[in-house]
């Protein structure tokens, strides 16, 4: 017994040292690394990078530098003009907003409707989920959305609505929705259920779901009745993750990824288009999309890489790609890697779980 106690004691000491020493070292040597703001400009056909740079002799502190990939530098006013969709409000304020962009007539209202920012982080997926989902009424006739009085769960047998006030199952509604789903070919249970159940949005598109056969469905509640739509998925595509978009423009319904890490857009009405980027793994990479009428700038960030892609907003074909130079390891980091070849941590950047990781 004493031997076992000693082994446990020394094991614990080593375990704690492998956890705490690298943590302390990082705590005292960590430095922030800022990457610039990058956006594709359809006016100049290039990425515009806004970043900070040391002034001359380091005396002027950090100055803001705006440039494109060929090295041409721009003033703030010039950047406003070459990114008219993004700086629309500034151009309006300066009375410089153009009547047309790329030969297309534009109005500030149109630009603001088409502009969007959409972000997906690995922590959105790798986090504990509660299997209960509120299904909003998507056509109530009122301008404001309202949270429903019930939530649904999807079991092996069907969809169950639970009344929140009484904590009891609404049999009639559950049967109605189960029958509607079954009639459209849905096989229970669902392996992916994605929606955005909040009233802080302009409209509601309900949920996109994958049934047990990975068949894609769209479910929403219209005037208290189920709206179910089966969506044809291109042959050979096995969808894995879904992200409902509910953008102001209503041009897209969801973003989706498949088992081969391809990114797809489910457009309205129900057409699946592949985004021409090499790969995107939402379980390990974050994406932020800044989109407008003409193009989307996608930033895909992993722990190793930081890549930018510009794609057309109609067919999602690739316009241009840019790889952000990875920030070089500092001397302190290099020394840290040498001193601590093995580290233990309990939390990570890619998920919200606590578990030991080496």
């Amino acid at each position: 017994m004493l031997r076992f106690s000693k082994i446990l004691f020394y094991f614990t000491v080593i375990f704690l040292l492998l956890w705490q020493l690298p943590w302390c070292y990082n705590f005292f040597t960590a430095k922030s690394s800022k990457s610039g703001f990058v956006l594709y400009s359809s006016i100049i056909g290039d990425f515009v990078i806004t970043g900070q740079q040391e002034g001359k002799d380091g005396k002027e502190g950090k100055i803001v530098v705006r440039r494109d990939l060929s090295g041409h530098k721009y003033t703030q006013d010039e950047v406003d003009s070459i990114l008219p969709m993004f700086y629309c409000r500034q151009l309006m304020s300066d009375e410089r907003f153009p009547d047309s962009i790329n030969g297309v007539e534009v109005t500030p209202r149109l630009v603001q409707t088409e502009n969007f920012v959409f972000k997906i982080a690995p922590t959105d997926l790798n986090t504990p989920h509660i299997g209960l989902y509120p299904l909003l009424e998507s056509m109530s006739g009122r301008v404001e959305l309202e949270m429903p009085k019930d939530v649904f769960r999807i079991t092996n047998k069907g969809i169950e609505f639970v009344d929140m006030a009484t904590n009891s199952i609404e049999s009639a509604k559950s049967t109605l929705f189960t029958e509607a789903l079954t009639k459209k070919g849905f096989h229970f249970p669902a392996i992916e259920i994605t929606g955005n159940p909040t009233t802080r949005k302009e409209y509601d598109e309900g949920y996109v779901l994958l049934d047990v056969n990975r068949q894609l469905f769209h479910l929403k509640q219209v005037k208290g009745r189920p709206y179910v739509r089966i969506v044809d998925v291109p042959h050979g595509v096995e969808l894995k993750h879904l992200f409902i978009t509910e953008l102001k423009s209503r041009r897209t319904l969801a973003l989706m990824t498949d088992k081969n890490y391809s990114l797809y857009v489910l457009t309205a009405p129900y057409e699946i288009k592949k985004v021409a980027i090499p790969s995107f793994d939402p379980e390990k990479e974050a994406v932020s999309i800044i989109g407008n009428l003409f193009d989307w700038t996608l930033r895909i960030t992993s722990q190793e890489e930081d890549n930018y892609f510009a794609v057309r907003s109609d067919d999602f074909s690739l316009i241009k790609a840019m790889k952000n130079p990875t920030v070089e390891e500092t001397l302190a980091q290099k020394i840290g890697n040498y001193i601590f070849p093995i580290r233990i941590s309990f939390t990570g950047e890619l998920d919200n779980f606590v578990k030991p990781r080496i």
Partner: protein
Amino acid sequence: MFKAIFYKEWIKTRWYLLLAVATTLGFAGYSMLRISRVVDLKGAEHVWEVMLSRDVIFIDLLEYIPLLVGMLLAVVQFVPEMQRKCLKLTLHLPYSQLRMVGAMLLYGLLVLSFCFAANFFLMALYLHGVIAAELEQHILLTAVPWYLAGITAYLLVSWICLEPTWKRRIINLTMSVLLLRIFFLSVTPEAYNQFLPWLLIYTLLTASLSWLSVSRFKVGKQD
């Protein structure tokens, strides 16, 4: 002998246990009352909505209570043992020393488990009627690491109390603080789900550390 040890420990800790059960049940009951009040004021729907959309679990108050209860039980049980030199007498009894120390720790584990189980029973009883099974499970699973921390704290503080020298006690204390920190690394509900079985196994293994202190006591280590 088991009965005698259990009786001795019961005499030593009964008033503290009454206080511990009353305190933990009081906090657990108050947390349930808070939910009940929200139900009365804003309706049960509000409880469901904030749990689903904002990661609210309503029992945050309980977070460090099991930890304190576990630590204090070890203090109440083992500090008098060391101060009055009772451990020395106990170890001289004609019975397996390992079994006697094991029985003392087992007593502590059993009463602590009873106290914590009463908390879970109270919470499950109330929550079952108000919220869906998924939400009930969400709340209770979030609380599991806190209660496990209470049990670990009991075993680690026992280890510290039984240690005969101050130098080693400080080392044990430092290790215990770091080990207990592991139970409180995240505020995300259910963040420990995958880690719980390992935490449970390690918690049970920490019972063996007390034997290290007792062995040092037996060989006469002192300041």
